[in-house]
Every structure is written in structure tokens, then in C-alpha cells.
């Protein structure tokens, strides 16, 4: 479990967390892919679209992915995060548009959580 210390993304600990976040997202993608037709499965890539015109996910599959990422983060980092908070839906550029933006958004939430503790 990570502590409640804000980490700079380019510090060794920050890089390690970035890696863990990426792995958590990929673990969730593995789970969701099990229930998707082969033609619709997601790639474990930073540029994989999750939402919008380039995404293969329907709304239910996206919900499944978000919840799976939350559980995966809880398991790997011990961080209880609610990804679909009001801020996520108010941002002009949704953090759910692709894997990379989701990872950055998660990093921000973790840092905010650390600084508010």
C-alpha cells in the first residue's frame, strides 16, 4: 500500500507508481476482454481508446472497465478511489478517452488524496 505522500511523476517512487497504475489498468482490460467478442477486445496500449468515436466499448463495457480498474487499484496500491466522480464528468477532455489519459487522471487523484490527508 502506498503512503499518503505526494509523489512527483519523474521520481523513482513516482515512476514505480505510474507503472503500478498502468498494470492495474491492463489487469482490468484483461478482465473486461474475457467478456468481449474477439473483434472488440482492447489492446493493452497507452493509446487504446476507451471512450468516444475510436472506442469499441459500449456503455456497459465501459462501466465494467472503470469498476475493474477501481478494484485493481485497490488490490495493487491499497487505494480506494472512485474514478467516476463529478470532476471526471465535468472535464472538457474526459479522462476516460484512452488508457494514457486514464492513468494520468488516476495519478492526479492519488496525489490529491495524499495532499489532502
Amino acid at each position, binding site marked *: 500500500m502506498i503512503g499518503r505522500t505526494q509523489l512527483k511523476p519523474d521520481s523513482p517512487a513516482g515512476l514505480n507508481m505510474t507503472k503500478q497504475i498502468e498494470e492495474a489498468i491492463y489487469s482490468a482490460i484483461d478482465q473486461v476482454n474475457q467478456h468481449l467478442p474477439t473483434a472488440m477486445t482492447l489492446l493493452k496500449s497507452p493509446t487504446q481508446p476507451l471512450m468516444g468515436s475510436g472506442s469499441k466499448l459500449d456503455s*456497459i463495457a465501459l462501466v465494467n472497465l472503470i469498476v475493474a480498474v477501481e*478494484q485493481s487499484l485497490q488490490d495493487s496500491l491499497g487505494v480506494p478511489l472512485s474514478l467516476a466522480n463529478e470532476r471526471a464528468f465535468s472535464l472538457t477532455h474526459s479522462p476516460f478517452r484512452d488508457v494514457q489519459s486514464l492513468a494520468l487522471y488516476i495519478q492526479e487523484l492519488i496525489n490529491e488524496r495524499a495532499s489532502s490527508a
Partner: protein
Amino acid sequence: MSGPPAHKVMLISGARKGIGRFLAEHYLAQGWHVVGCSRGQSDLQHDRYRHAQLDVANEEAVAKTINEVRKVEGRLDALLNNAGTASMNHFLLTPAATAESIMRTNYLGTFLLSREAAKLMRGNGGGRIINFSSIGVPLKLEGEAAYNASKAAIAELSEILARELAPFSITVNVVGPTPIETDLIRNVPKASLDRLLRRQAIPRLGSFADVVNVTDFYLRPESCFITGQTIYLGGVS
């Protein structure tokens, strides 16, 4: 889903006493693994029972409890959102703090537990959520504006959750009990209680068994096509 399951897990809020305690003992006797929760400790001892102390309106505490269920039990099959609080008073004499407290425990608690439980149920192929309303809602009881509003909100919430959670094979239904001999009605004047009972088709107090009869029905495997429904006891509709 009723009957002696191999490893079926149920979460019951407000399980320390009253209907919640009865439900816990009933489903333990049927072979369920039961996780009870309440603000206080429970003295219920059983090898398939665990108790979590939490405020159901505390988002982080609810998420933590459900996560512990996931880690320890690996699944969740049923949620009985029984926790509730009541207060009777004329509308003009109801403090904001009372209205807020009732809404937090009754409505927000049901909202949060349902949301986090459904996330876990999603992973094990579905589940059953049973929420608790009250016959006070259809009877529009004077003196219960804050309480009834919270229970009406639960019924409305349940009907929409039934639709949103159907793709995950999760049913959401409601039971609306009549007054039962519990702490909840301990301070209700006898005249008020008698007046209420006269408005029921069957004018008597309910029993725990009356409530369990409905929850058993919602939990049956054959009830997988029943969702978004409210059953009021006592012949009230």
C-alpha cells in the same frame, strides 16, 4: 438463490437488532454466509457470520467494508438494505438536522451500499438487492414527512437501479413493511398506531416472519425476472 447455497454471501445492514438481526439469523440457518453491519457491535456468534461496524452514509467506510467482503468472501450474492432510522414530528416542528440525518441513513446509506455491492456482484455474475421502504409511503402518513420522503426516495431509486443493473443480472426490489414491534415504533403513541393499522386492509402489526416471506421470495432463483417491484405488507398499495 434461497435454500442451502454452497457459498453464497449476503450483506445485511442494520443487522445488530430488530428485523436485521432476525434476517441474519434466518439466512444463517439457511446456510448463507452473512456479513452484518451496523454502527454498534453485534453479539451474534456464528461461524458463518461476520460483523462490520460502520455508518452506512460514510462513502469511504462503505467502500472499505465491501472491499473486505471481496477479499474475505470473494463474492457477494445478496444485499439487504435494512438499516433505517425514524423520527415522527409535525413538519413545522422538524429540525433540519433531523431531516438530514434521516435522509443520510435511509436514502444515502441505501444508495452507497447498493452502488458498492453492485460493483462486487457484477464480478460474480449477478445478485439480488432488496431495499426497505415503508407502508407509510402509500398511506401518506401525517407526522412522517421526513421519514416517508426518505422511504419514497428508496422506492424511486430502486426502480431506476432495477433498469441500470439489469445488464449485470442484478435485480433490485423493495419490501414495504407495516409497523412491527421494534425500537423504530417504540415511541409512536398508541392512538397514532391504531389509526395507522385501521388504514391497512389487514389491521394488525406485522411480524419479522411477514418480512422474511417477501425477502425469501425476492431471493428465490425463480424470481430472476422480478425486478423494480415493491411489495407492501398488510394489504396497502
